[in-house]
Every structure is written in structure tokens, then in C-alpha cells.
């Protein structure tokens, strides 16, 4: 049995669909943070059978978790403060995503101007559809 210790302050991201842990690690920019991160793959889960878990020891005000809702809104976000669960943060689809997805439309201005940020807006919350702010093309990138 693998044991990962408690964290004092930060986040425990639970019920991550199996295999998505590393993707979330990069999407949240955890590779660029100078803090302690544990990624647990293929953990046992009553709900999912198998799941991934990420524990991040950091200031709870420093991490933007918007992208998690886009990846999978069923992920459980436990906010930890003083070693205890402060709250279970609900995941809501952000109205705008900047620098998370790339527009694949070859006719979009972002295809020739490399410096432009790739920005998507929430076009249909029910179907979780995001469209490029510049060309309105539907996001086709798997998160």
C-alpha cells in the first residue's frame, strides 16, 4: 500500500478519471510551480474503480483551477487549510479560457500570428462547447 502524507495547505484533487492526472498536472502549470506535488495513478476507487489523485501543497490563493471543469466537472476539489478540508470547491465552466486550448482552424488569425493568445469563450454551457474568440470555431482539442 502506497502512503502519501497529509498536506497542511493546498488542494487534493480527487476522482480524476484514470490517465488524466498528468494532463491536469501540465494544464494547471504545476510543472512550473516550486511546490510539493504528488500524483497518484490508478488508485482504488469505489465510485470509479480506478482513479488518479493529485495533491498540491501551496497557497490556496495562487492556483487557478478553472480548467478542471473543462477537463471533467466530476473531479472533486478539496481545499485544505491547516491540515483540514476547508471546503469542497464546486467546479463551474469558466466563461473564458486563455492559453488552455489552441484553435485548430487554419483560417483563424491565430494560425499566422504566433504571439496571439488563444482565447475561447463558453458558447453553450449545456453541451460544454467552447468557441474561439477570433473565428468562432468550435474547440476540437481533447483535454
Amino acid at each position, binding site marked *: 500500500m502506497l502512503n502519501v502524507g497529509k498536506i497542511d495547505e493546498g488542494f487534493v484533487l480527487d476522482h480524476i478519471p484514470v490517465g488524466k492526472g498528468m494532463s491536469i498536472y501540465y494544464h494547471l502549470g504545476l510543472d512550473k510551480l516550486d511546490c510539493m506535488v504528488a500524483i497518484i495513478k490508478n488508485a482504488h476507487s469505489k465510485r470509479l474503480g480506478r482513479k488518479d489523485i493529485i495533491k498540491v501543497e501551496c497557497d490556496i490563493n495562487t492556483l487557478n483551477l478553472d480548467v478542471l471543469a473543462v477537463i471533467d466537472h466530476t473531479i472533486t476539489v478539496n481545499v485544505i487549510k491547516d491540515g483540514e478540508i476547508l471546503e469542497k470547491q464546486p467546479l463551474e465552466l469558466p466563461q473564458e479560457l486563455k492559453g488552455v486550448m489552441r484553435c485548430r*482552424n487554419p*483560417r*483563424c*488569425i*491565430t*494560425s*499566422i*500570428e504566433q*504571439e*496571439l493568445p488563444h482565447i475561447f469563450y463558453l*458558447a*453553450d454551457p449545456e453541451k460544454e462547447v467552447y468557441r*474561439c*474568440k*477570433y*473565428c*468562432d*470555431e*468550435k474547440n476540437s482539442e481533447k483535454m
Partner: protein
Amino acid sequence: METIGKDGRPLRHLMTPLDFSVEELDKLFDLASDIKGHPDDYKDLCARKKLATCFYEPSTRTRLSFETAMLDLGGQVIGFSDANSSSASKGESVSDTIRVISCFADICAMRHPKEGAPMVAAAHSRIPVINAGDGGHQHPTQTLTDMLTIRSLKGKLDGFTIGLCGDLKFGRTVHSLVNAMLRYPNNKYVFISPEELRIPSYLREKLRSMNVEFEEVERLEDSMPKLDMLYMTRVQRERFFNEEDYVRLKDFYVLNKTKMELAPKDMLVLHPLPRVNEISVEIDEDPRAVYFEQVQYGVYVRMALIATLLGMAG
């Protein structure tokens, strides 16, 4: 879309026809109608103001319409008519170009083959930017032209059965017009196209979600008797990646005298032009064929738009 201008005041731009509310559009069309009726009253309205036409791809018609509009308002015109004669050929970004143009001109009309380029320009501009066509995306001044033509010739913008025929997949004028007309009640739509060029799914979903009455058909003849207006479009070679598909679909529809005999006596035929083979020249003299009149309305609506965005519409 709003940014800050040279004088520190908020700037209005036009990226899509939906940037203006229905009330603002009414004012714009009223102004365009007044300009049509009393052109002399407006001949010096924009004296000493300069319009920059930044056209990164050829478009004689739209560019000349903008230039005529500014000249008829007493203003002046600078600009370029293809990317090779601009700094874009040296690799300059759209945002840099508009920063430079902002120092020269008072308002800019931009056409670009890449979708969203005018929006990038507007975000960095200190003068109003008008989207004069961005790839297959938006062409708002064509939509304003279409709407002014309909309003002027039919007296209203609601309660019509509107046929749209030809390239409904890549035809940005169709998407823009439908999106703009959706704001007016009781319009029904008949989309006439080959299977390969049907309206995009997002537009179909939007129509369904708004409970708008519409049908998608392939035969033009069957729909003619019920139409109040028929909006014909050209199958555009530049929107195809595959030449074979273009050749196969380009002459799918030809509107001729025989088909016009099936249409109501007061049906309007509109076309954003240029036409190729989709409207036979034999119907040019038919009073229902209003596509050349439409071009003239395009100048009036661009005059009204320039005056409005420059804050000179009174």
C-alpha cells in the same frame, strides 16, 4: 466592442452586425435613408477626416464602396488594396499595422483573409475599426447593406419568408444575415443548397433552440412560390481546399426566367455580388432583381456607419 480612442473617449468598432442593438440599427438605417434622400446635406460632414482602407486581399467592390462613402461625406481616403503592398509582406503583425494606421487616419475599414484579424486590430486600435470581411467568418457591412435594401424596398424587417440559396456552408453573408434577421420576429427561412453546402451545425442548432421556423431543401423551383425574397450566393473558389469539389458544385443553381415565373410578383432577388453563373443575365431587367440597387444601398449604409462611428451622425 469598445476601446479607448486618441482623445481618451471610448471607441466603437463594428466586428459583427450584432455589435449594434436593434434600436441602434434602426437609427443607422434612418440615417442611411436620409442620406439617400438628401445627399447634399451630408457632403461635408466628414471634411478633413481620413478613412484608411486596409485590404489584405483583393475586393474591388467593398473597397470602392467604402471609398465612395467617405468621399461622398467630404472625407479623404488612404490605404492599400492587397497584402503585398503593405508591411504585412515584411511580416508585420496586424496589431502593429493598426497602431501605425491609427497615427495616420481617423477610421479604418479592414479586410483580411484570416478570420478574427479585424478583431485583433480593434483591440490595439486608437481609431474605430470596421470589419470589411474576415475570411469566411463575418462581413457585417454586407449584412447592413442587405438589411437596408430589404427595409427600404419592403418597409420592414419582420414577417418574411426568406430563401437563401447556394453556398450556405462557407457563405459568410448568409450566416451574418440570418443571425441579424433572427432579432426580428416572425421571419421564416428556407435554406436551398446541395447536401455538401448546407448551413453549419451551429446555425441549425441556434435556429432550433430559438424555435424559428426553417427548412432545408435542395430544389430551388419547389420553394420559389412561397418566398418574399431570395438571397442568391456564389460558390466561392477561395473557400475550397479541393478544386474538384468546387468544380462539381459551382453551377448547381442557376436562377433564370423560367424559375422566376414561379416566384411571387413582389419577391425580391438579392445577391451580395459578384455573381458568376448563378443568376442568368436574362433576369437583370426583371424589376424583382434588385442586386444592383443593393450596391447603391451599400454606399448609403457605409456612409451612415462611418458618420456614426466617427461620432458625427448628430
